């Protein structure tokens, strides 16, 4: 079974690469776009922390930028491997192409990804953001943070849970497409919501902290992995946050499955 899904993954990757290489200019534009976006994000955070006098909600500038760099890697990972499939759901439903996606003998989500492409042209940005993450690892290391194999493993585990939250949010905003004639706002909603995940949790008022931790666990994308890594969370709290992130992702998948089951194949595509 695992071999089957691995072959499926390789097949999508090969098709995506050959398709994307036809549009080589995409790679250049993607690189420019994401570079400007990265500069704008980091620049905005630097301006904010400077306005706050060098520390914000108990976080130093380097720690804030470390959170932003985790956010950046997660963002690029999502963009490269999941965005193409998930954000074409609305168009697939509207155009009726979803018919043959749902006919495949696969889970509707896997079938959706198999019918779409990875954004291979985004790979340079993924690498750049991994580079930025390493730079901020070195900077917080200079500030006295200790890196061990164990805490890096924990950071990776929590960051993966954060990626699952990203995926869940995307599902929640695209799934209503099954219930409408045409729904085009899902993608914009995803970007608007996830843009909040780059901030440390402590900058938000308590009500928003609670919402972003348990209801819409955006804090799990970058802030909580960093907090656990820096030892700012107890193990009990960390386990609770991990549980809430995974629960949210599971509920999102169920919501998508429910919405897909309501698909009527009657959309006009006009």
């Amino acid at each position, binding site marked *: 079974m695992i071999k089957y899904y691995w072959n499926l993954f390789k097949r999508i990757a090969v098709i995506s690469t050959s398709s994307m290489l036809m*549009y080589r*200019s*995409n790679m*250049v*534009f*993607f690189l*420019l*776009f*994401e*570079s*400007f*976006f990265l*500069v*704008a*994000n980091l*620049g*905005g955070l630097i*301006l*904010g*922390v400077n*306005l*706050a*006098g060098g*520390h*914000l*909600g108990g976080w130093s500038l380097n720690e804030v930028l470390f959170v932003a760099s985790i956010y950046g890697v997660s963002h690029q990972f999502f963009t490269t491997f999941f965005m193409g499939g998930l954000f074409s759901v609305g168009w697939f439903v509207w155009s009726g192409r979803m018919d043959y996606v749902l006919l495949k003998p696969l889970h509707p989500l896997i079938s959706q990804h198999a019918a779409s492409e990875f954004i291979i042209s985004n790979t340079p940005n993924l690498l750049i953001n991994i580079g930025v993450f390493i730079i901020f690892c070195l900077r917080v290391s200079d500030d006295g943070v200790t890196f061990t194999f164990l805490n890096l493993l924990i950071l990776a585990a929590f960051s993966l849970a954060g990626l699952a939250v990203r995926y869940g949010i995307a599902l929640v*905003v695209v799934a*209503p497409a099954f219930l*409408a004639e*045409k*729904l*085009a*706002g*899902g993608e*914009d*909603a*995803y970007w*608007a*919501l996830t*843009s*909040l995940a780059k*901030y440390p949790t402590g*900058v*938000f*008022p308590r009500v*928003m902290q609670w919402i*972003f931790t348990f209801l*819409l666990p955006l804090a799990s994308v970058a802030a909580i992995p960093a907090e656990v890594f820096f030892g700012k969370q107890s193990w009990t709290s960390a386990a609770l946050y991990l549980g809430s992130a995974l629960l949210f992702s599971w509920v999102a998948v169920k919501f998508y499955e429910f919405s897909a089951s309501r698909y009527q194949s009657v959309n006009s595509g006009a």
Partner: protein
Amino acid sequence: MADIRVLIRASAVHFGQCLQAALMYRSALAIFVVSEAFAYAGIIAFWYGAANSNPNQAFYKPMALVLYFCLVSFHHGIQHHASSRDIGSDIRLGKLSYSIVRPFPFLLQAGLRSVAFTLTYSLLLAPLVVAAFIFVPDLWTTFCAGILPGAVWQYPVAAAIGLTAGWLVRMVIGVLAFDMAQIWGPDTCFIALYYAASGSVFPVDLLPVWALGIVKWTPMYYMVGFPVLTLMGRLNPVQFQTEALQGCVVVTLTFVILALMWRRGIKVFEAIGI
């Protein structure tokens, strides 16, 4: 004269249809408004926290930042972000071929779509801004304390420059489709530059002087930052006049670029579509 009457009548009908189409997609509107409200609530919390944790800084009081982002959310919301993609697909898919036989110019249709979008979203978002003024303590007081006597005429000028700049620059990106298989790449680059230079995700006047000097020569600054700073009274009359003049130059240059690109593009347009 008859041509002008046809043009005005057709424009009015087209404008009405755009308004109707925008209001048909109520679920998309609801998702947009809710997610943008969430996003701006987070941005406001971040910047409020930043200003609040440093009582020594006097550049932005915490409530002034709340006001800034309330006004920014409105000005960002009324931008017709999809217009470049619409124009690009009209050109690439061949829709332009039948649009050019209509009795009014293709770009006028695109312009009217954007005006209709802006008007629709102004009507939808204005009550939210009013609600913010009513329910957020001290917001109205902060607004009244900052407003300058000239704002009554300065703000409409700033908003007009900003909206025109936004509509034109997106048309420029859209007509790139005459020479490209898709304009998705340039459009995303524009979005990134918009976020960096417009002041929609951070107060634009916090930028270093040299960076602010650069962004003032781009249309993005005029789309959000300029009208918001004008409305908040953060530009004195001399600054306003200088920037308004600079904005007019930027708008004119954008228009000239659009006209040149359109003239060249329509000559090579083959009406085949892909």
